[in-house]
C-alpha cells in the first residue's frame, strides 16, 4: 500500500496506483482545499508542492509520488501563521469566488521561493493559472507585496 506524506503526515492509501494525486487528496484523505478545475493540467487549480516544486496534482499519479513530500494549501501556513503569500492575499483582498486561489497561492509560493523579487516578466512566465473571475490585477499587486514583505 503506497504511503503519501502530506503536510508532514504519513498516510497509507489504499486506492488504485493510477489515481491522480488530486483525487487521492480530495476523496481519500478528505483534503478538499486542492481544487479540481480541468483534470488536464491546464488551469492550475489543483497546484500543490511535490518535494517543494509547484505541480498540477491532477496529472500526477499516486504511484509517482509515493514517499515524496507533498504540501497542499492546508499545509502552507505554519503553526497558525499565514504564509506571506496568504497574508498578502488577505491584505489585497485578492479572491473573488476564490475557487482557483488555492492553486494560485501554491504557484506563487513556489515562484517566490525561486525568485524572491520577481519582476512582472517573471510573474508572467511563472503564473499560468486560469482565474475566470479575473483577479489577475490584484494577484500581481499581492505578489509584489509578498515579495517585499
Amino acid at each position: 500500500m503506497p504511503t503519501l506524506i502530506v503536510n508532514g503526515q504519513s498516510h497509507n492509501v489504499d486506492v488504485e496506483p493510477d489515481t491522480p494525486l488530486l483525487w487521492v487528496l480530495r476523496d481519500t484523505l478528505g483534503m478538499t482545499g486542492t481544487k479540481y478545475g480541468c483534470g488536464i493540467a491546464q488551469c492550475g487549480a489543483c497546484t500543490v508542492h511535490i518535494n517543494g516544486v509547484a505541480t498540477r496534482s491532477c496529472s500526477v499519479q499516486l504511484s509517482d509520488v509515493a514517499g515524496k513530500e507533498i504540501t497542499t494549501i492546508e499545509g502552507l501556513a505554519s503553526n497558525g501563521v499565514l504564509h506571506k503569500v496568504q497574508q498578502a492575499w488577505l491584505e489585497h483582498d485578492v479572491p473573488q469566488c476564490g475557487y482557483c486561489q488555492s492553486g494560485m497561492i501554491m504557484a506563487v509560493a513556489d515562484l517566490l521561493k525561486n525568485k524572491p523579487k520577481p519582476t512582472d516578466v517573471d510573474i508572467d512566465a511563472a503564473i499560468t493559472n486560469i482565474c475566470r473571475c479575473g483577479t489577475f490585477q490584484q494577484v500581481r499587486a499581492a505578489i509584489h507585496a509578498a515579495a517585499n514583505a
Partner: protein
Amino acid sequence: MNDAPNFDRRSFVIGSAAIGGGLALGLHLPFGPDIVRAADGSPEVNAWVVIRPDDTVVIRIARSEMGQGSLTGLAQLVAEELECDWTKVTTEYPTPGQSLARKRIYGDMSTGGSRGIRTSQQYVREAGAAARIMLIQAAANEWKVPAAECNAANSVITHQASGRTITYGEVAEAAAKLDAPKDIKLKDPKDWKIAGKGLKRLDTADKLTGKQVYGIDIKMPGMLVATVKDSPVRTGKIKSFDAAKVAGMPGVKKVVQVGDSGVAVIADSYWRAHKAIEALPIVWDPGEAGKVSSASIANFLKGGLDAEQAFVGNKAGDAKSALAGAARRIEAVYNYPYQNHATMEPMNMTALYTADRCEVWGPTQNGEAALAAVSEESGLPIAKCDVHKFLCGGGFGRRGRVDYVRQAVAIAKQMPGTPIKLIWSREEDMTHCGYHPVTQAKLTAGIDAAGNMVGFHMRISGQSISASLAPERMDPSGMDPVVFQGLSPNSPEGNFGYNFSNLLIDHAMRNTHILAGFWRGVNVNHNAIYTECFIDEVADALGQDKLAFRLKFLKPKHAAVLKAVADKAGWSTQAPQGVYRGLAQYMSHGSYVAACAEVSVSPQGTLKMHRIVAAIDPGHAVNPAQIERQVAGSFVFGLSALLYGECTVKDGAIEQTNFDTYNSLRIREMPRVEVIVMPSGGFWGGVGEPTVSVAAPAVLNAIFAATGKRLRSIPLMHEGIRTV
C-alpha cells in the same frame, strides 16, 4: 435529460403564498413564543438581522455569492442603517425553503442580471433601519425614557441625558418582542459611513487556507459520488448502455439512467465514478439535430440578415427611406459565436432523497428555482424539499439553471437514503451549457451629400435566450425583448445611447437546438460590439474623430462616462510610440460604462493590450473597492471571450471539451485596468456585468487604429491575432 423551463415563475409565487407560515428558522427551542430564533437560539430582531448575546450581528443574505461581492455589499447596506459595529458582522444564507415557509419573506433570491444589490437595496436597508429602531426602543423601555432621547452607534445605544449605554446584544431579546416600526426613513447616501466605502470582503479568509467549503467539497456520512454523461447532442436520447461492463470496477455501486438522455455512475469516489463512466459503453441517438454544424448554423443566421420578417426593438423616424435616399451607404457584417461560462468549479450538487423529504446542497444562483426543481424531480411537495446554498466557484449566469440540480435528484432518487454528490467532469461542463447565444449583425449607415449620417439600421440575426430558457419573457408577438439589451429606447435597464434621427434596430430570430443561456453580460456583449465598432467605422469613413463623432449623438450619462475615460486616457494627446487607442461606451444592466483601450499590434499580428481605462456610473456605489475589482475582472472575462471564446458545433454536438480547446486569458495577457467609479446618484445600476460589454469593442477599435484592419468575426484567434 429534460431541462425544459416548465417552472413558471408566476405560479411559483402564487404557490409559495398558498403554503404560508408556521415553520420558524432553525430549531424550535424553549424560548418565548413570539420570537423567531436562529438555530443557536439567538433572537431575530427581524428576518434579516439576528443579534447574539455577545454582540455578533448575523445579517441574512438572500442572494447568492459567486465572487461578485454582493454578499459584502448587502451586509454593508444593512449595517449602515443598523448602526452596528462592522467588525462584529457575519452573514448567513436563509434557505429557499425557509423563505417560502415564511411567505417568501426574503423576496427574490435569484442572483443574476447584476441585480443582487440594486433590486434588494431598498428592503434590506429598511430591514437594517427597522432593527435599529427596535433596538433603541428596547433600550428606551428598559431605561423608561423616550426613544427620541437615545441614539445608536457602533452597536451601542446611548441615552444622551444620563450617559447610560447598553449594547445591541444586551437588548436584542427585548427588541425582538417589539412590533416592527411603520415609518422608516432611510439615510441619505451622502451620510453613509459603512456603505459607500471600499471595505474588504467578509468572505476572504477561508479562501486562502483551503478551509472554504464549496459544493464540490461537501462531505456527508455515507455519501457516494456520482458523475454523469448526458447526450452529447442536446436533443438526443440514450439508446442503450451496458452497465454490466463496469459493474465490477473498483468502488462502483450502481449505474443509473438519468431521464431519457443521461446515464450516471455512482461510486465511492469521484475518480472511480469517472473511470467507470469513461469505460461504460453508451449508444446515443442524436436525432435530427445530429446533422447540425457551425457552418449550417452560420448559413441559417445569414439568411436572417436580409429576411423580410423581423421584430423591431427600436425605431425612430424612417431609417429604410433615409438609407434608400442616402448619397452613400456604409455597410458591415459582424458575428459572435457560442461561448461557455466555464466556471472554475464544475457543476455539482449533493442530493439526499427519502420517501418523505428531498434536500440538496451546493452552488446555485437561483435557490428558489432549484427548490422548485427539487420538488418536481422528486415528486414531493415543495414544503418537504429544501436547497442549501453554498458559495459558488464562479457563476456568470450558468448556475441560474437547474439542469444539474434535477440530475442530482434523479440520481439520488434511485438510491433513497444515501446522500449522493453529483460532480460533472470539465468535459461534461464544457459540452452541456446554456451557451452565449450565436448572432450575426448587418449594419448600414446612410450618409447624405454633405457628409452627415442620416440613417442607421442594425439587423441582428440569431438566437433568443428567452426562447431557450425563459419563454415567459417573450412578447406575445413572438419577439424576445431581451435581445435588445442596450438597444432599447429609454429603458432603465439599458437604453441605446445615441440620438439618431432615422433609426431601426430589428431582430430576425433564428433558434437552433443548441441551448442559449444567460452569460455574464448576456446580449449586451455582442450588441455593444455591433454598435460601438460600427459607429467607429462610420466615424472613420467620414474622417471624424471617434470621440467627437460619438459625442454629437450621445445622451448625457452615456457621454459622461465616455468623456471620463477619454480624459484619463489622454485621448486628445499622442499615445506612446506604436500604441493605439480605441473607445467604446454602452449601457448595461442599469449602469453606464465606457472604456478606452491602448494596444499595439506587431506586423506578425502579435497583440499587446497595454492598458484599459474603464468607467462605470452605477448610480450608487456601495463598495468602490469591490466595484474596481469587478470591473478589472470583467475585462479578463470579456477579453477571454474576444480572443478565444468559441464553442463550435459538429454533428450536433459542441466540439470544445476543456481549457485546451476553450482558452481563457492568463495573467501575462491582461492589460492594466484603471477604473473610474463615478456614481451620479438618482438610480441603482448593476456592477458585475456591465463593463464586460465594452471590453471587446474598445480593443477591436484600438486594433483597427493600429492596423487599419477591421476585425468583425469573434474570436480573434481565427483572425491572425496572437497575444504576447
